[in-house]
């Protein structure tokens, strides 16, 4: 049999079709059998306000209110009794502590002042990991830490404050390394987000074999957490268009 004859017969197989009724029935069956999972979003905003759903939120909220009322009453009574109440910065972010530390560093007089600055740096350092998710906050932190390092580096100890000064230098060094880590994480997160968006955009584009190969490698890098390498490959495939 010739190629042409075989192809003609093969083309005739294209006439094999399912019955119209079966096609419609199957479609309805499939779409009705497995409804998409309901999500809070699909159920609508008002769903969240049903009384039964509010109970798990209301109980912790009530406890928080009680605690807040207790703290307020305690502070009020302490003030009435003439006791000095410690002031917590209203906006106790690392940047706030760092700005306070920067100001305090300009007028260090007693060893207690040095100790106070060391404590501020310690508090700022422990809050840096959560604050570093915000790029604007990270920028402020980096700026303040650079200034603090400069100021702390210029300080010299004397017999009176040698211990406090050593602690301050130690805390300043911890702060620097935590800031560097946060900065690196921030860059990593930004790259991750960028690569994720580029992957989404590239998914919908028609790619040549070579580009498709690069794209699958980029996705594998992304899934393995190698975001810089993934970015490099996506840029390569964009340039090869």
């Amino acid at each position: 049999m010739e190629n042409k004859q075989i192809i003609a017969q093969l083309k005739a197989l294209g006439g094999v079709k399912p019955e119209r009724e079966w096609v419609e029935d199957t479609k309805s069956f499939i779409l009705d059998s497995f409804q998409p999972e309901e999500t809070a979003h699909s159920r609508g905003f008002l769903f969240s306000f049903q009384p039964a759903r509010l109970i798990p939120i209301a109980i912790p909220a009530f406890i928080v209110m009680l605690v807040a009322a207790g703290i307020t009453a305690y502070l009020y009574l302490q003030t009435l009794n003439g006791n000095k109440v410690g002031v917590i910065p209203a906006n106790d972010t690392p940047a706030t502590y760092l700005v306070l530390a920067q100001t305090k560093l300009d007028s260090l007089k007693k060893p207690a002042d040095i100790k106070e600055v060391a404590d501020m740096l310690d508090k700022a350092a422990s809050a840096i990991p959560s604050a570093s998710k915000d790029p604007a906050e990270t920028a402020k932190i980096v700026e303040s830490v650079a200034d603090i390092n400069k100021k702390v580096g210029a300080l010299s100890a004397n017999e009176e404050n040698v211990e406090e000064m050593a602690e301050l230098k130690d805390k300043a060094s911890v702060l620097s390394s935590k800031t560097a880590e946060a900065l690196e994480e921030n860059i990593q997160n930004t790259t991750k987000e960028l690569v994720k968006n580029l992957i989404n955009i590239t998914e919908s584009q028609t790619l040549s074999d070579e580009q498709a190969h690069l794209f699958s490698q980029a996705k594998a890098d992304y899934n393995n957490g190698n975001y810089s390498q993934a970015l490099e490959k996506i840029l390569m495939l964009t340039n090869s268009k």
Partner: protein
Amino acid sequence: MDKKQKKFSKIYDNYVESIYRFISIKVSSQEIAEDLTSEVFLKTWKSFQQEDKIKNPRAYLYTTARHLVIDFYRTNKEMRTISIEDTKEIEDMTAPIEAQEKQDAALEIVKQGLNALKEDYQNVVVWRYVDGLSIGEIAKILGKSKGATRVLLHRAMEQLKEGAR
């Protein structure tokens, strides 16, 4: 019908016939072809709900169909289709007189000839000549280059021709 259902409905409408035909050529009865086709779309619908988007629906559906047919024959070994030699015997025995019957028999023979091919040869021939897909589209489904797909198709046709002699 929500957005997801509408999207899937479109995919179903576009591909149900070709997937049914693809399976129907590989199995012995309409009933089995219908069952397997439903299963292909059920599986796809489930994935579609989880992932929201299927990058290449055609490739996804054909791959699922291939796997289901393989599983079907794995669990029903005695139902494997007949070889080219057997088809010749059938051709001799049936000898239809009417033109329509002759055409049906010819179709049946070509179907059986296809079934005697290796699975990847069979698929590439069906996609190219029955479904009319381009070499590029077939290459995408197979995850091969266009050149490799052309070679595969050529070898498949040679074997099909050989079997028909």
